């Protein structure tokens, strides 16, 4: 298997772009990744596009604007994991020797999409047909976590305060304003115990990366970022009882990526986890091995999730502040970690970061903890 590196990134501020369409805001992001990678469009041999709410052929619709057609373009839908799976497929193509250069990007425009299509299932999905919505699913995880481990609503609110504080340092973030604990605790209830400021916004946006075979990377980038490991799983169908405080698909994906990389939680300098809701930072800190089950809140209280802490957690502001356009979310995490490892993350820089991790789940399917979980470890 060949080594694969990230040599170019393209990113935009996530937000509401209702007066334009996703093609118009996505092509500049893709072009920026090509320019940063110092590659011509003709060098790109394959493209993967993650999107969940933009209809059929999102990749072709964006890339034709740049004349990047003719090559294989594969559109990937994996709900919130779409972008990360697109990246993984691009990585596999180069690692296996089929290609030397690949583009992976994600795009969605949730503000025009109505109810996220990835979250609407047919009549066969019992939970969603009978009144479940995504905030409600995470609210039930939060309620059980609080019951089992004594975590309080104030502690959950502190996660939102932290996320918004880092969002304020991130020019790409949808929300760039700090909030107080009181503001979080007074924001309107969405799904008890999760309030508005506990929830990620529905955003529009795009994010892109250019990958190449490791041996070519130094021709294109002064500091290429290597994809050390990549892992993807689907959730296991468990129609019986399950422990909702320990998301099993994240647990299995983390186990595999640690085995693949020969690294452990103690080697990770920063992590971007799928914090669609505040409770997720606790759930995934436990699942990814940064804390023992139920003990993540101690890391939070001790400041270990901060940029200068033991395991900087979502110092981009995470989904909570950067926003969550679905398709590009997984790529945006990878762009953030790439910038961090290259020492170009500005006010939110984790000093001396050498190894970073991304984690994104995807979708609510009755009987599965998630439809998908996708993780990457990057290094310089």
């Amino acid at each position, binding site marked *: 298997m060949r080594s694969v590196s990230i040599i170019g990134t393209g990113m935009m501020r996530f937000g509401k772009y209702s007066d334009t369409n996703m093609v118009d805001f996505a092509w500049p992001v893709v072009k920026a990744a090509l320019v940063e990678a110092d590659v011509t469009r003709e060098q790109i041999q394959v493209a993967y596009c993650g999107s969940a709410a933009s209809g059929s052929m999102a990749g072709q619709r964006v890339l034709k604007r740049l004349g990047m057609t003719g090559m294989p373009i594969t559109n990937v839908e994996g709900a919130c994991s779409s972008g990360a799976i697109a990246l993984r497929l691009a990585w596999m193509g180069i690692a296996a020797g089929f290609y030397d250069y690949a583009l992976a990007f994600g795009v969605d425009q949730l503000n025009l999409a109505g109810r996220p299509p990835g979250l609407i299932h047919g009549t066969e999905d*019992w939970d969603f047909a009978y*009144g479940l919505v995504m905030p*409600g699913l995470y609210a*039930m995880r939060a*309620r059980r976590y609080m019951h089992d481990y004594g975590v309080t609503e104030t502690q959950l609110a502190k996660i939102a305060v932290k996320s918004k504080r880092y969002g304020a340092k991130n020019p790409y973030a949808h929300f760039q304003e700090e909030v107080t604990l009181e503001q979080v605790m007074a924001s309107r209830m969405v799904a008890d115990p999760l309030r508005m400021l506990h929830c990620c916004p529905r955003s529009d946006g795009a994010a892109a990366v250019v990958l190449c075979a490791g041996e070519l990377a130094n021709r294109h980038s002064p500091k290429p970022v290597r994809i050390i490991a990549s892992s993807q799983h689907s959730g296991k169908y468990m*129609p019986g009882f399950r422990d909702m405080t320990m998301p099993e698909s994240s647990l299995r994906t983390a186990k595999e990526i640690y085995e693949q990389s020969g690294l452990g939680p103690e080697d990770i300098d920063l992590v971007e986890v799928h914090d669609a809701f505040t409770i997720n930072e606790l759930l995934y800190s436990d699942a990814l091995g940064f804390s023992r089950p139920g003990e993540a809140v101690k890391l939070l209280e001790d400041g270990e999730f901060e940029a200068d802490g033991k395991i900087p957690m979502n110092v981009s502001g995470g989904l909570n502040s950067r926003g969550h356009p679905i398709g590009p979310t997984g790529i945006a995490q990878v762009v953030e970690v790439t910038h961090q490892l290259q020492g170009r993350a500005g006010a939110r820089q984790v000093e001396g970061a050498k190894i970073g991790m991304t984690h994104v789940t995807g979708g609510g399917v009755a009987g599965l903890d998630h439809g998908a979980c996708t993780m990457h470890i990057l290094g310089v």
Partner: protein
Amino acid sequence: MADAERLKLSHQPYLAIASGTPQLFAGTCEDCHHSVFPPAAVCPFCMSERMVAKPISKQGKLYSYSLLAQGAPEFESPYYVAYIDMPEGVRIFAQLADVDPATLACDMPVELRLTTPKTDRYGRKVGQFKFAPVARRTP
């Protein structure tokens, strides 16, 4: 098995109402004895198609819950949602009725109740049942 027969099994009822009393059914596999809810024509544990309807207890344990301030548009918000663990080994997603927020807690016993159904956007009757906290017996 003929396709028509298989289709019929896929749509076997999960609920029966006899003289105002609701009864839920799981699909139970005659080969590996696992149960699924709602009933299905094929067993996800062993792929056997020898699935039979098995009555589910009226009472279960509240695994977790949430009050949705703004839920799905098909339902009138706010409403409570919950996962309920049944003695037959299935976890059922359902809405809750007759909740006293002050006493609602994980692991409390809840029981099946018949409620007035609504028609969802697929034209199906939904909300024919909910679970409610088991009333404390007065001494």
